[in-house]
C-alpha cells in the first residue's frame, strides 16, 4: 500500500502515523509539505494530528486553506482513501470533505487518556477488520474534539450509516458517561457519504503495540491495508 502524509507547520503526530503505517504495511509513507500542489499517486492520504498553525484561529481553519488542499479535494472526490486523525479530522471538516465541526471539549480542558468506542459500522474500508459492535480502546489527546452537526446533517449522517466509531463506557454503553468531550450522539469518527474519507478524534496510531498497552489501533490500519492488498 502506498501512502502519503500531509505535513503543515505545527503538525506533530506525522511520525506516529508514519510508524503505524510502516508497521502494518512495511512501507514508509511519503511526507508531503503543505506548500506542495501535487500529492503523489497513493492508495491512502493521511492528514495527521497536531496543532497546525498553532490552532490559533480555529483548529484546522488555516491548514484547510493551504496549497496542498486543492489536490487533496480532487483526490478525495476521485475516491482515494483519506484519513484525518484529530487535527486532521478538524482540517477535513474545515475543507468540507466531512460534515459537521469540532468545538471545545465540554469540560474545557485538554484531555489525554484512553477512551472506549463501539464499532458502529464495520462495513467501511477503515473498520472492516473489527467485529460489528466491537468495543475497542484508543487514546485521545485533544482540546477541541466535541463533534457537532446540525439536526438535518446529523440525520443524514446517521441514516446513511456514516458513523464508524462512537464513544462508550468500557461496557459498551453509549452514554454521556463514556463521552469524553460532549460529542453529539457520541460520535468519535465518521466517514463522508461516499465512505472513502474518514475523520476521527482518537489516536489509533498510538495504540499499535502490546508494549504501548494495546493493539486496537493497529486493526484500523490493517483494515486499510487489507483493502489495498
Amino acid at each position, binding site marked *: 500500500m502506498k501512502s502519503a502524509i500531509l505535513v503543515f507547520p*505545527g503538525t506533530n503526530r506525522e*511520525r506516529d502515523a508514519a510508524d503505524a503505517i510502516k508497521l502494518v504495511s512495511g512501507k514508509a509513507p511519503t511526507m508531503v509539505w503543505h506548500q506542495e500542489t501535487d500529492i503523489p499517486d497513493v492508495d491512502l492520504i493521511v492528514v495527521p494530528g497536531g*496543532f497546525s498553525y498553532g490552532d490559533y484561529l480555529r483548529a484546522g481553519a488555516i491548514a484547510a486553506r493551504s496549497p496542498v488542499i486543492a489536490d487533496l479535494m480532487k483526490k478525495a472526490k476521485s475516491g482515494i482513501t483519506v484519513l484525518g486523525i484529530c487535527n486532521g479530522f478538524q482540517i477535513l471538516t474545515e475543507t468540507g470533505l466531512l460534515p459537521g465541526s469540532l468545538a471545545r471539549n465540554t469540560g474545557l480542558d485538554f484531555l*489525554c487518556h484512553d477512551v472506549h468506542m463501539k464499532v458502529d459500522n464495520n462495513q467501511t474500508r477503515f473498520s472492516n477488520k473489527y467485529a460489528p459492535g466491537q468495543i475497542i480502546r484508543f487514546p485521545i489527546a485533544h482540546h477541541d474534539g466535541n463533534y457537532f452537526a446540525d439536526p438535518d446533517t446529523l440525520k443524514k449522517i446517521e441514516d446513511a450509516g456514516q458513523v464508524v466509531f462512537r464513544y462508550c463506557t468500557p461496557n459498551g454503553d453509549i452514554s454521556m458517561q463514556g463521552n469524553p468531550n460532549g460529542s453529539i450522539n457520541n460520535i468519535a469518527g465518521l466517514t463522508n457519504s461516499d465512505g472513502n474519507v474518514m475523520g476521527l478524534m482518537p489516536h489509533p496510531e498510538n495504540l499499535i503495540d502490546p508494549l504501548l498497552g494495546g493493539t486496537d489501533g493497529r486493526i484500523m490500519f490493517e483494515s486499510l491495508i487489507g483493502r489495498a492488498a
Partner: protein
Amino acid sequence: MSKLDPGNNSEPEVNAVLGAEHGLAPDEYQKIIDLIERVPTFTELGIFSAMWNEHCSYKSSKKWLKTLPTTGECVILGPGENAGVVDIGDGQVVVFKMESHNHPSYIEPFQGAATGVGGILRDVFTMGARPIATMNALRFGEPGHPKTRHLVAGVVAGIGGYGNCFGVPTVGGEVNFHKRYNGNILVNAFAAGLADADKIFLSEAKGVGLPVVYLGAKTGRDGIHGATMASAEFDESIEEKRPTVQVGDPFTEKCLMEACMELMASGAVIAIQDMGAAGLTCSAVEMGAKGNLGIRLDLDHVPCREDAMTAYEMMLSESQERMLMVLDPAKEEEARGIFEKWGLDFAIVGITTDDLRFRVVRNGIEVADLPIKELGDEAPEYDRPWVAPTPKAPLEAGAIPDVDIADALLTLIGSPDLASRRWVWEQYDHLIQGNTIVRPGSDAAIVRVTGHDKKALAFSSDVTPRYCEADPFEGGKQAVAECWRNLTASGATPLAASDNLNFGNPEKPEIMGQLVRAVEGIGEACRALNFPVVSGNVSLYNETKDEPILPTPTIAGVGLIEDLANTARMAFTAEDEIIVLVGATDSWGTHLGQSIFLREICDLEDGPPPPVDLEQELRTGNLVRGLIHDHLVTAVHDCSDGGLAIALAEMAIASGIGASTNAPADPSQVAAFFGEDQGRYVMTLRLEDRDALWDRCEKAGVGIAEIGKTTASELKLGEAKPISIEDLRDRHEAWFPQFMKS
C-alpha cells in the same frame, strides 16, 4: 573619556543608584567601573545587570556547585552547556536538563509555566537533540490559600498548552502543596532529547569574521529584566512585575525546532545558542567568550515586533523562541531557505571578531563596548556566610497517638500530597511520539528510544522538601536516593541527574546554610550511587516578606533500560503471590519524624527526617535491579511518602488486586505501616521463587521480610479492618478534581 555615544537624552543618568535599581550592589557597581575604567552607558549597565544577576552568574552558589560530581563513565558533557549529554550506547546520547521558572509562574501562571517549558525544550534542541520527554516538578501553597487553585489551574494549563502543541510527551513529575509556597510557587521543568553522539552542537563560536545569525521569532518588549526579577525577593508590588513575564508561542517553537534540525543537518551551523534568560546579551556573550572571540552586534538588523526599540530594550528582552548562531557563510542561502520555509526570521545581526570585545551598535552608533571574557568570568562570586541548620530532636515517645490504621490510610490516600495527580497529567499529552511505555502515575516513566524495539529510558523527578527543611543534608541525600530508587524500581540502570536547587534569600546565613548542606548531601549521594549531576539550575530569592520556601533541591534522573522485557511495574500482577519488603531492617518501619502521617494525622511537622544509608541503598538497589532482570519478582514499588501502607495501597489501586498483610511484630503498628524509613522496596513474587529470592537477598546482605500475600479485592493491613480497592481508589482519585471544582 569614551568614544561611546552617551545615549539619547531620555536615557537616565548612570550612577550607583541606577545600578542598585538594576539589582547591582554598590560594590558590584564599583567593580564595573574598575573593570572598564569609566562609567558604563545605560545599555552597558543593562548588559552587566543581566550577566551579573544571581540567575545568570550563580554568584552565590558557584562555590558549592563545584563540589558536585559531574563526571562518570557515561557522561559526555557535564554542566556548562545548555544541557548535559549522556551516552546511552549505539552511538546515541540523551541530552537533558531541569530548569526553574518560579518567579514568572507566580506572577502570571499560564505564561510563566508555558515559557518555562519552552525554555527547557530550547536548551535541549539547541544541542541538536530532538525532545522525547518532559517532566514538571510543581510546588504550590496550601490548598486553602486563596491563590492556590488559580495558580494550579494556570500552571497546569500553561504546561499543557505549550508541551501539547510543541508535540513532546509530558510523562512525569511532582505536585506538592505546603503553606511555605503560599508566596512563591515552584515550577521546575525538565526536558530530555535524543541525538547521535557525533552530532552534538555547542555554543562555542569558532572562526573570525563569520556571520552571527538571529533565528526564530521577533524581539519585543516582553520579559525585559526577567532574569533580574528572578534574582530578588518578592514584595507587595510583585503584581506590577507582570510585564517582565515572557509570552510563549509553542507553534513558533515547534517550527523553530524543525527548522533547527534541518539547519543542523545541512552543515551550516558552527555554533548555536538559544536566547533564554537575558536574551541576546547572554547568548552573544556566551558564544564569544567560550570561543575566545569578540562579537559585534548591529541591532538595526534584529527583527523587531515593535517600533523604535532601544538598544537597552533589545539587549534585555526575553522574547521567546529565538536562537543565535554562527553560520558557515558558504551555506547562507541554504540556511535562509530553511527558515523561510518554516516562516521564521533569519537575519545576520553581527560578526565574530578577534578583539575579545562585545560591541553593540544601534542606529550606527556604538552603545556598548565591553571586554567579553570579563563579562562572564569577572562576575562577582561570593562565599556567603552560612550557618549549619540545627538538627531536630527525635520525636518524643508519646507524640504518636494510637489510631485506626485503616482510617488513617483512607485519610492519607486522599490527602493533598498523596492523592492521584490524574487531573493534572490527563491535561498533558503523554502519549505523543508513540513511545510511552509506562505512563504518568508510576515510580518512573518509561519512554522507548525511537527506532529501537527493546531499548528505553526511564525518568523520575524527586525531592521531599519537608525533609530538607528539617535537615538539608539528609534531605539532599534523600532526594538523590529516591530518584535513583524510582529508576531502579522500574528496572532501569540510573545514569545521571539534573539538579534544580530552589531556595530562599542566600544573603541570609540560615538560608545559605540550607543550600550548602543540601548540596553537600546531594554530592555525597551522587558519589555513593555513581549518579553524576550533568546539568542543573539554581533559583534563589524564593521568598516573600521574610517567608522563604521550604528548601527544595529537585533531582531529575535518567535511567537506561537495555531490554523492555526486563522491567517492572508497581501494579500487582496476580493473586496469591508473596509480598515482601526488601531493604528492611528487623522491623517493618520505625521512622515517623517528618512523615506524611505525622503531618496529616497529627498536624505536626517535627523530628528529624529519615536518614539515608547510602551504602545500603546501593546494595539494595543493585539487588532489586538484578531480581527484576532475572524475572524473580512480579511487581516492584519503592516505599516513600506515607510508608508501607501507601505503597501497598498504590500497588492495589494500580492493579485492582488486593493484599493482606500479617500483623507486624513491631512495637508500633503506626510506625510499621506509615514509617518513612528509606532504602526500601515492596515487591511480589511467585511462591516457587521464594527460596531463590531469599538466597539472593542473603548473598547481597540485604534484609527481607515476608509481609503478606496478594488477594482478591481488599487491602487488609494486619489486624485493621479491610478496605475495598474501590473505596481506596475513590478516595485517591477524588481529591484533586474536587479541589479544583471547589
